[in-house]
């Protein structure tokens, strides 16, 4: 454990495994959740959270709820939304209400180096070592 805490909410197993394969060489040990319910549970158990990576379409709800909850408990949490929805599906208002920027949303299929860069960018300011 390097002290960086990453929670990934993603219902597709293959994608969870992909994220793990990318993040492990970077020195991270992310926590995974496949549903909103599971995500909530993991959030409840977490002592700290630096980065939340979440899908939008989840089998039991919206990833946006996950973001709201995470922000409530950890106001400084960084967020990266990775969605299979077409750009524009989430309206500007919703994005703003979640405290997100356009750049916090990336769209599937995401390239490995883009994913790495986005994660790195968000963790750069956490003050902890990678």
């Amino acid at each position: 454990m390097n002290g960086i805490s990453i929670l990934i909410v993603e219902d597709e197993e293959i994608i969870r495994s992909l994220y793990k394969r990318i993040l492990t060489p970077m020195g991270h040990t992310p926590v995974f959740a496949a549903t909103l319910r599971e995500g909530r549970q993991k959030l409840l158990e977490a002592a700290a959270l630096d980065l939340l990576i979440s899908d939008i379409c989840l089998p039991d709800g919206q990833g946006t709820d996950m973001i709201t909850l995470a922000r409530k408990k950890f106001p400084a949490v960084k967020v990266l939304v990775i969605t299979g929805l077409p750009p524009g599906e989430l309206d500007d208002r919703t994005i703003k209400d979640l405290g997100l920027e356009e750049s916090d949303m990336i769209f599937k299929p995401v390239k490995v180096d883009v994913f790495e860069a986005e994660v790195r960018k968000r963790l750069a300011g956490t003050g902890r070592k990678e």
Partner: protein
Amino acid sequence: MPDVAKCDTLAVSDPGGDDTNNPRHYRADNYGFRINVSTTFREYPGDDMNETKQGLAANRTQKSILVIDDEEGMRDLLSHELGLQGYLITTAGDGEKAVEEMRRTKFDLVISDIRMPRRGGLETLAEVKRISPETEVIIMTGYGSIAAAVKAMKDGAYDFIQKPFNIDEMSALVEKALEKSVLRETLSMYEASKAVFSSVHLDQLLPIILRLLRETLRAEDTAVMLADNSGRPEIIASTGLEHEGRKQAHLEAAGKAATAPDIANGNAMVFESGDGSGNNAGAAVICKLEIEPGVTGFISANRAAGAGPFNPADLRGFTILAAQATQALRNARLYHKLEEKVIELETARNELIQSEKMAAVGRLTAGIAHELNNPLTGILGISELLLRDEKIQAGLREDIRDIHMQSRRCQHVIQDLMHFARKTDPIRETLDLRPLLEETLQLFKNDIFRAHITVRKLFPDGIPKVIGNSNQLKQVFVNILLNGIQSMEGKDSPELAVSLYSAKGLVGVKFSNNGGAIEEKDLPHIFEPFFTTRPTGKGMGLGLSVSYGIIKSHGGAIRAENGPGAGCSFTIELPEGTTPHERDLHTDS
């Protein structure tokens, strides 16, 4: 409304045929009428009513009789006796004078001697029948002229009476003849009304009204005018108004009639005919037609100088015609409105069906794209990771690269599909379409040169700007131009036209080419994803769908049409506008 055009002035051939060198003009711009230009007026309904259309005046109190005899005694006798019975008698000493009278006034009955100097009874009869076919003629004969009397009967005289006659006998005959003339007038009124109501199309109705005016009133020039709320009348149809002075006289009369209180109830008003002579007083009349609130019509008629003033019977006929014309014009307007409504509804329904269909296809597409994006993320991601792994041997690496490349292709198809299904797009700027079109055309420079395509650009100045995403709009232009250029492959003298226009808050771009029409059955489908008329392998059929999606997300519309000529056109319309940011910049400067 492809077969309908609004036009300002329309010259029409004269179906009556008696003044073919006298063109009639029709105007009906702002009054909510429809003019069907493609119609010729040679066969308009009512053309078959021939001789019975004159004299709309019935039930008038005093019948007028013209007595023609060279014997003064006979003239006095008939004048006196028939005058006592309430008839209005005019006398003439010979045929020449009689014809003059006939030209001036309309008579219900003519009583004519058969033997007269200068112009004989038979000749006079022929002339009377020519001037006023429905006027009955009674012939008076002496001994030895029975043969002539029989000939007169054949030529259209009502009856003959032998001199000397008993005055009662004459009275009875006069009464009978006039009865027939009343019947005839009723019939002619019926025919006129049938003619006026035979059409709800203004272009057919106006010539009928003009002709009835001319024939009923024996008028030389006639006009139908309309005035809207502004109150300034305009001539929408006329005959014999080539002289500006005459035209002005009709217009001035309409201007006065518009406010004259005594003509409000369908009364006719007499006006100065405008020939400047002043000796034709009472020979020009106008009637106001209250078509509907805000739209007033006028019909006016003017007789030739010397033709005499209108008598009460003429005026009565005129007002009846005015009432009928009012109703007929109302009908024409209502019919036109109805027609417009039907077209509007049909268009709206078709648009609704089309947009519903496209929305359904959009939802389906978005769903598929979303579902495919997840597995694709796995395939692309894992293959990318594997390609990074240096331990993987060369042969296997090639295979993985193939998997990766093929997956990328899938990704591009899906991205195109998502473009089609997209709802909104965040990146918007104020755009001038002209440079964007120039830039796009530049991309096709080589294709255009190689295929010898003539490009016509119509980019007028002062086209407003639009808000949009320049890359996306360029993509749309590329798709459409590519389509057009491909459709012209192998065609003789290929031609491509690109024009910009603005109307009703929209900026439009129209791309036309002569590469052949789109089959009618294909037209409703060409924006659907994967719809293509090209052989398999030549394009996937996504270009137009993507264009559709982009234009929709810009709040615009895109449509394809066939023609004119051997080609088709694509039209894009975008709402004009400037981003708030841009507006601020302009107000600052």
